């Protein structure tokens, strides 16, 4: 090995030593003692940020270190389907849940005026939440949806003077879904009522008001009896089929 002059660059000039010193070991620098610079601004700021974040996290999620709280208040599980029967029920959505889901989608049309929670806008657009019209019979609601309203109009004793264009272009099913949605979501249902409006009922309304060409005024709507319901079979909320 030692006859290869390149390999072992023996540093011992005095000779005598047979220490095999490879170049890598020779050229290596010494390890200098660590510098004593103080901690500078950048890392300090970063550290402070991390500490604030972590402390906030701990405050928000630790729930006072109580042993009996398992779910933090930040956890909001999706609601399980009504009448849940374990996973089998979860796999297939009950008819009414799907109907409401679709209704909520159609309701996006109404959000600009009536607001996501049906609160309306004071002086401009009336609320749907607990409005006498929503709480009342379905015939009036069908009439409003299909022909619109214009002019002075009172809702729960508050006057409005504006226009709502008719929604007859939506199609019967969608009108039925959105009416079901606003009644069940925003209305107060009477004893024994399920708030469901079916496609069949909307069809009947279309038939009933087909000759009308102008939007309603308040007097015209109030002429329809408050508790008048659109004709149509009641359905089973689980299946959507006519109930016996």
């Amino acid at each position, binding site marked *: 090995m030692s006859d290869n002059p390149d390999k072992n660059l023996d540093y011992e000039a005095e000779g005598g030593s047979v220490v095999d010193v490879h170049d890598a070991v020779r050229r290596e620098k010494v390890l200098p003692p660590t510098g004593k610079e103080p901690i500078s601004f950048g890392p300090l700021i970063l*550290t402070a940020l991390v500490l604030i974040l972590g402390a906030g996290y701990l405050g928000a999620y630790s729930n006072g270190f109580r042993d009996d709280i398992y779910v933090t208040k930040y956890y909001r599980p999706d609601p399980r389907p009504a009448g849940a029967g374990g996973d089998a029920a979860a796999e297939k959505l009950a008819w009414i849940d799907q109907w409401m889901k679709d209704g909520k989608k159609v309701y996006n049309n109404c959000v600009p005026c009536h607001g996501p929670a049906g609160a309306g806008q004071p002086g401009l657009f009336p609320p749907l939440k607990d409005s006498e019209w929503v709480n009342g019979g379905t015939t009036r609601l069908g009439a409003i949806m299909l022909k619109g309203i214009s002019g002075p109009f009172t809702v729960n004793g508050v006057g409005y003077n504006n226009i709502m264009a008719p929604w007859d272009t939506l199609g019967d099913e969608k009108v039925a879904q959105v009416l079901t949605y606003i009644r069940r979501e925003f209305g107060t249902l009477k004893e024994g009522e399920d708030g469901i409006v079916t496609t069949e009922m909307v069809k009947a309304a279309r038939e009933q008001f087909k000759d009308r060409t102008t939007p309603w005024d308040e007097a015209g709507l109030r002429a329809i009896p408050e508790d008048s319901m659109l004709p149509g079979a009641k359905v089973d909320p689980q299946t959507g089929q006519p109930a016996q």
Partner: protein
Amino acid sequence: MSLDLNQATPEDIRERAAIDRSVRYPVLFFFTSAAAWLFVATLLGFLSGLKLRVPTLWEDCPWLGYSRLFPVHMLALVYGWAMQAGLGVMIWLMARLTRNELKNPVTVIVAGHLWNAGVAVAVITVWAGLGRSMPWLDFPVWVAPLLFIGYLMVTLWLIPMFRARRAGEVYVSEMYLIGAALWFPWIFATANLLVGDEGAATMSTGINAWYMSNLIYFWFAPVALASAYYLVPKIAGRPIHSYPLAQVGFWALAVLAGWTGFQRYVGGPFPAWIPAVSGAASIFIIVAVVAAGANFWFTLRGRQKLWEYSPTLRFTLFGVLMFLAYAVLSGVSSFFSLSQVLQFSHFVVGLDTLAVYGFFSMAAFGAIYYIVPRITGCEWPSPTLIRGHFWFSTYGIGTVVLTMLVGGFAQAGQMNQWDQAFVRSVEVANGWIVGRIVAWLLIAAANLGFFYQLALMFIGRGRRSAGPTLIHAEPGSVGSAEEAVALAGAGGHH
């Protein structure tokens, strides 16, 4: 006496050479057998990805099922490769730092065989279907003592070495090494005693997550940082910027690491404060990483160009950078809004891979590129292969992390929809799984060159001329990365 304080005296050099010679065989043993395990792990990573993508493949063979391939891949990667390479780095570093020769190379080699036997038995038993289904702890509990004793037989020698250290201030690398040496037996024993058939099922899961996080912060991190704190100043030729900063980094890690882990099951069936404490610790611990990263940054300020030439520096710094990425991702993903979505998705696999390969393995490669020439007496043969090793590894780890992150979001989005069939989440993630297959192919390509070079070095067939192998320089043409930078700078001005 040389005027340049950075230049070693003849006595220093003689001492160094003696130390390196004393650890030569154990360290080489660890590095080469680690590399062999890395090869196995890479192959298994590829196969398990393939199996996940095409589940109908090899349908009749339980040995090639994902539920065995993946755990075996992880065991080979974590214990076979990463920890074993780390043990080699620890021994060499401790000997160098404390200026002690290793007195018992034979015991350490025996211990190394024990460790390898442990890993082999772990791999075989899990592969045969005897696994515990606990990530990183899949092996049957009776395998644990093999690994445990093997480990102690190696690291126990570090303590007398440390006690016989040269006088003066304790260097931060020494603190990290002693920490790592002692923390692992604690977490490993705790996890093995509490996880599994005997423990309560729910707690087992939590402790399992605690163990994984602790292995990263209490072992991989200190070993990699010890190596970085030693190698960065050596290559930069200047001292580590700030001692206080280094202390902050060490103590933050020491105090916080043990609290991390449970945040993986935020919202799980534990009293809510447990994952909350873990989550907060995993956020606070970012301080430890920032401190180390900032210290290296300031140390190298004005000399960043060294990174282009020195393989050691390049791999080491990339590792530190990935450590930062890991710490930030794991801290951020413990927030409820994210964790609620991501916690059972591929994201988690991406994060684990980031820690073991992107961070630790890269840092270990850096150390290996530095150490092996010194203990074998020859230089790495090919700068091209080193460069390939770096870039293919980078692409590989980038692919895993990105696809698993995005795929994890896609998968989890579907998984959390209760009115959706579960199979949707599988279908949605399926495309992203390709990322895992490609990544392990890239990593395999990267490491082939590494294995080849390491084998040459092992049998003493490395390059025989003087001068280091640097990435962008004719082998042996310059004496150091610093010279290479100076030369390139001079060339640039003409």
